[in-house]
């Protein structure tokens, strides 16, 4: 029952966003000065949103087995940055600290979504800069996104989203990340997401760990 509510919420919030995107695109096209570029951005973002809704639906409805492939990590980050920028991120400077440059076994599109969301979020709150860290720790791949904004609110919890759909993105991201499992010795380790305070830039710190 609860799972069904969550699913309905995800779909409702997605439909809402797509409806807004399409409405904006229409008004762009109808306005006297035709800005096709802007309309395209809106339509594309509606399509991306629909595609995300579909994968969220599959994930929750069928407890989908994620497709794992060996993916180059810096390439994954580069893709996510480009996509975050294309979906209208501001021009803050992004620096990358790369201590790991190899392939990792992961669900590419799903992790890409998680990263694009996290980057868009960091971009929304950052004042001037974002810093991305890529390194290995205890056989886990760690991806960090630091920003120099006000940081995450203290009462923000990663859990089930509320009925208005708040925390939905994080909820799905946690779900996707936890699907990445790997045996380390005797233990089965799951992927995780953590929100904290960035020591480096003083703002928020988003940490993604993949076993």
């Amino acid at each position: 029952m609860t799972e069904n509510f969550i699913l309905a919420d995800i779909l409702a919030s997605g439909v809402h966003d797509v409806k807004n995107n399409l409405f904006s695109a229409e008004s762009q096209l109808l306005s006297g000065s035709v800005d096709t570029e802007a309309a395209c951005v809106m339509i594309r973002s509606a399509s991306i949103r629909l595609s995300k809704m579909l994968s969220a639906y599959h994930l929750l409805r069928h407890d989908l087995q994620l497709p794992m492939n060996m993916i180059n990590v810096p390439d994954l980050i580069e893709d996510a940055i480009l996509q975050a920028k294309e979906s209208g991120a501001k021009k803050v400077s992004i620096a990358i600290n790369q201590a790991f440059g190899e392939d990792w076994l992961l669900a590419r599109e799903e992790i890409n979504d998680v990263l694009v969301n996290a980057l868009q979020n960091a971009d929304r709150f950052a004042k001037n800069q974002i810093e991305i860290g890529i390194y290995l720790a205890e056989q886990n791949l760690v991806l960090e996104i630091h920003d120099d904004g006000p940081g995450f609110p203290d009462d923000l919890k990663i859990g089930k989203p509320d009925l208005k759909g708040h925390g939905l993105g994080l909820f799905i991201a946690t779900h996707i990340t936890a699907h990445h499992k790997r045996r380390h010795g005797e233990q089965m380790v799951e992927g995780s997401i953590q929100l904290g305070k960035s020591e480096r830039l003083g703002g928020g710190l988003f940490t993604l760990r993949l076993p």
Partner: protein
Amino acid sequence: MTIYNPQTSTVNYKDKVFLVIDDQASTRQSLRTTIQNMGGVQVIFGANYKDAITKLKISRRVPDIVLCDFNLEEGRDGQQLFEEMRKSKLIYEHTIFMMVTSERSYENVMSVAELSPDDYILKPFTPDLLHLRLDRVAAKKIFLKHFYIAKLKNDLAGAISVLDHLELTSEGSGAYRFLVKRNRAETLLLANRTADAIRHYEAILAIHPFPWAKLGLARALAVDKNLTKAQKLIDQVVEENPHYLSAFDAKAEVCQAQGDFDTAQRILQETVNKNPRNWSRKQSLAEAAMLNNDEITARSVMDDLLKNSLVTNDANVTDRLNLARLAIKVKNTHAVMEALSGISESLFESQEENDQISILALKAAANPSVHAPELERHRNDIISLQIPPLLLGIDVVRAGLATKDIELATRMATTLMKNKTTRMVSDELSVIFTAAKQRAAFQEILRLVN
């Protein structure tokens, strides 16, 4: 790491020939515009599977970059087309192949495919994202260009020395470090330098426990006849990464090498059920079933393969060979010749040596009076094969017996028995020798091997 800016692209797309395959005219046009914006001018279009193959055949030049939609008409998909193009050598290993798909489930296809395209891109995408992805793949292909050329000429020693050289460059010791190491280990294995391949994989694993390196090591150990260790390693990969389906293929290979055709067939069947679209795995299943004497399964898998893959006149050679093998087993020589007659001279010439030998051997076995001289011309090549694949070995044994070259049959059978001393193999050979009224020759082999 610098952040991507399409304005700084270093790839010259003006010189490149593009092949764009999509059944929607509007998509083809929009991709053409994107290509033009990147500086590309030479674009060929394919409207569907068959059209793409035809365009490739009549094109004066093998395209440099293929952009292919995953969903093609008539129940065929881009993955099949890609595998067929590569296996029929219509495109090279250094040809860039980018799958364009609107389905997220393509990741599933990719995770279980034996041959993967260079990359795939999910619709909808922006021109900049496609540009970034192509730049990235092109940079890799340019980096490895001389390696691919040497490999294409079958100059494996040359290919390895190219990699030795590349490893000393800044990219080869930096961003492409593992690309170089991986290709070198794979090429060493291909060149039968098994001990070196094992050493290379172990060195890679000492740096990081990549699942692909574990699988590579397991495959090398299996060639080195260290089957117990190989199996242990693969089981470990399967357990650690239950989603990494390539490990199941390797597991089946090792079972097969151990002569456990039954388990090999079962694993392949389960994996085929998970992804019924994978063509080469189905071929492996047909072969495993054949070795397992399960002719009903072999036949039904082959029928399915032939029904779904015979789009072009040059049917896939592996399928034709397997069909011929099934036919010769039941002594239907007419069917053997029918299966092989579709392999044109030019197609024959483009095959790997092992397949060429099998084609000649099966023809000689089915029609010795006509085809014995051709086989005779390749006799020295056949005898010099160090570790002949099992199916090829059996083809040669049949050919030797049919053409009364008992020495050739005996030599090959002895090599097979020395390499794989399993009940299955010796039973199979026993049946073949007995049918050719050469029981005594087989007894002699048994005496020699034991």
